[in-house]
């Protein structure tokens, strides 16, 4: 059975669901932990989480292809579920360094492989849509869990168990797909394109860095309800605009989506720079969700576009590791607290940095070949002409 949602795709529905479940379950788990129980971890424990995630992602990308994919994926998901459940059994602070390391390990080990799986079984002209749907699935799941927890008002232990359940949804992927080498698509670029990859990594890093700094600008104790509401809107926007960006990127190329993301985030900082207020915090978080949506979808695509089977895990590891290093290290930047006090001018500087990071994107090669875009336009044209002519024949 083939999946018709993508129109011209020959992506089987089972493989489609498997690719989405595998990545979405893990990413949704990560974002839920980060935003809901992130305060359980001290800065040092959070740093351990990111360091272990980053190191394990690099290690896993180096040994990819040398282990049985199916068993590896099973162990990776099981580790994620187990380490989450352990949080409820050992909530004492003394266990936190160990548990955060374990959680980090359970994130990093398989993430590059699962992202590469999406690229391995898709054609370049449908990859962005699949990525967009994956982001939609990720944040759709996260929003559902967030709303459920708000309505049912779960205690911490139940909440953590619910997150473990979210993580375990990835197990379904193993039921749906065999994860063998067969049916993987061997095509795309003749050799990995490292030069353009660097041009795309710069805005990605800037985007994460600037977003992290901006997050630190918001006095969260003072604006708790605004942050909660804004966070919900942000997740909704990420889901919706991730989905939309995927469709835009398969039609007009990857660069427009990235540029839109950078501009929207720049604008959202400018809003925050107008002054800190509840409404500005909500508007900022919501608007930045649009930017995050397009960025998440695009950075699930670009490493796959620029790499070939076998090297993909390394590309995805880099995309995953670099933000983790930033996420872990931002709280340790000396003098950041003093600097962020001048939030207004600080926001303007962040906006400027974002606008400047458009330059490497403009210089980079568009990863979706022009011929694929023309083919798509022509296909759309044929469909519309067909409809117009048959309508005219009916009139006759």
């Amino acid at each position, binding site marked *: 059975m083939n999946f018709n949602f993508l129109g011209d795709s020959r992506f089987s529905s089972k493989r489609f669901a498997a690719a989405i479940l595998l990545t979405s379950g893990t990413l949704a788990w990560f974002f839920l932990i980060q935003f809901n129980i992130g305060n359980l971890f001290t800065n040092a424990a959070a740093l351990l989480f990111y360091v272990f995630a980053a190191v394990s992602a690099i290690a896993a990308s180096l040994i990819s292809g040398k282990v049985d994919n199916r068993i590896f994926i099973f162990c990776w998901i099981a580790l994620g579920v187990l380490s989450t459940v352990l949080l409820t059994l050992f909530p004492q602070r003394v266990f936190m360094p160990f548990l955060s390391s374990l959680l980090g390990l359970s994130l990093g080990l398989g993430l590059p492989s699962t992202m590469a799986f999406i690229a391995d079984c898709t054609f370049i002209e449908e990859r962005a849509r699949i990525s967009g749907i994956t982001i939609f699935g990720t944040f759709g799941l996260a929003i559902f869990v967030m709303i459920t927890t708000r309505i049912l008002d779960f205690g911490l232990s139940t909440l953590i168990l619910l997150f473990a359940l979210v993580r375990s949804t990835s197990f379904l992927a193993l039921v749906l797909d065999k994860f063998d080498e067969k049916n993987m698509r061997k095509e795309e670029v003749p050799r990995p394109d490292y030069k353009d990859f660097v041009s795309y990594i710069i805005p990605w890093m800037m985007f994460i860095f600037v977003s992290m700094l901006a997050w630190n600008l918001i006095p969260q104790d003072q604006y708790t309800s605004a942050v909660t509401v804004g966070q919900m809107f942000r997740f909704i926007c990420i889901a919706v605009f991730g989905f939309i960006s995927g469709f835009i990127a398969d039609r007009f190329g990857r660069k427009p989506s990235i540029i839109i993301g950078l501009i929207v985030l720049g604008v959202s900082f400018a809003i925050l720079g107008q002054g800190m207020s509840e409404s500005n915090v909500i508007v900022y978080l919501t608007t930045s969700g649009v930017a995050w949506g397009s960025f998440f979808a695009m950075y699930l695509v670009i490493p796959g576009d620029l790499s070939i089977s076998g090297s993909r895990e390394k590309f995805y590891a880099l995309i995953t590791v670099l933000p983790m290093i930033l996420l872990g290290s931002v709280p340790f930047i000396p003098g950041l607290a003093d600097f962020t006090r001048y939030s207004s001018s600080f926001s303007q500087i962040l906006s400027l940095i974002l606008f400047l990071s458009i330059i490497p994107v403009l210089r980079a090669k568009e990863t979706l070949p022009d011929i694929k875009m023309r083919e798509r*336009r*022509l296909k759309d044209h*044929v469909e*519309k*002409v067909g409809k*117009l*002519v048959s309508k005219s024949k009916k009139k*006759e």
Partner: protein
Amino acid sequence: MSPGKTLAFHSYKGGTGKTTLISNLAAFFAKRGMRVCLLDFDLYAPSQSIYFRKNSRLYLNNLLNGEAEISDVLVDLSSELGLNGKLFLGFSSPGKEDVRDIEIKHEMKWQLAALRRFLSAKNQLFEEYKIDYLFLDTSPGIRYWSINTLATADILFLVMKNSDMDIEVFYNP
């Protein structure tokens, strides 16, 4: 339901003799007493005006742009060629600017608007001019106006040379 038929002649490659074939067929049908119209939809490389050594004040390009009606574009060659029936010709502009213009006009909005104008002109040809056969000469290959033209036809003729290469590109363009 219009009584007339629309016949489009297409080829994947150029130089297959499509224009020669369609022009002669149109003239033959008109000579046999039928009312025929031949429109040169090879907008990217017009050749009918050269073939018939005729010109017109307004072209199909003007019709597609909404600057002219079908009646302004048609040239009646029936009496000149001594035909029993009628032969109307519609040329596309051989001007460099017009050819370049059509090459770069890919916006869907314009394409659909132009196609709507053509469909309306086609109806007019069958209803007012009582055309029996409308011949459409298309541009070779898969291009916007060859697709538009082919979509409007009742019968499609694919013209190719008897060579392996021509047959191969037909199946795998």
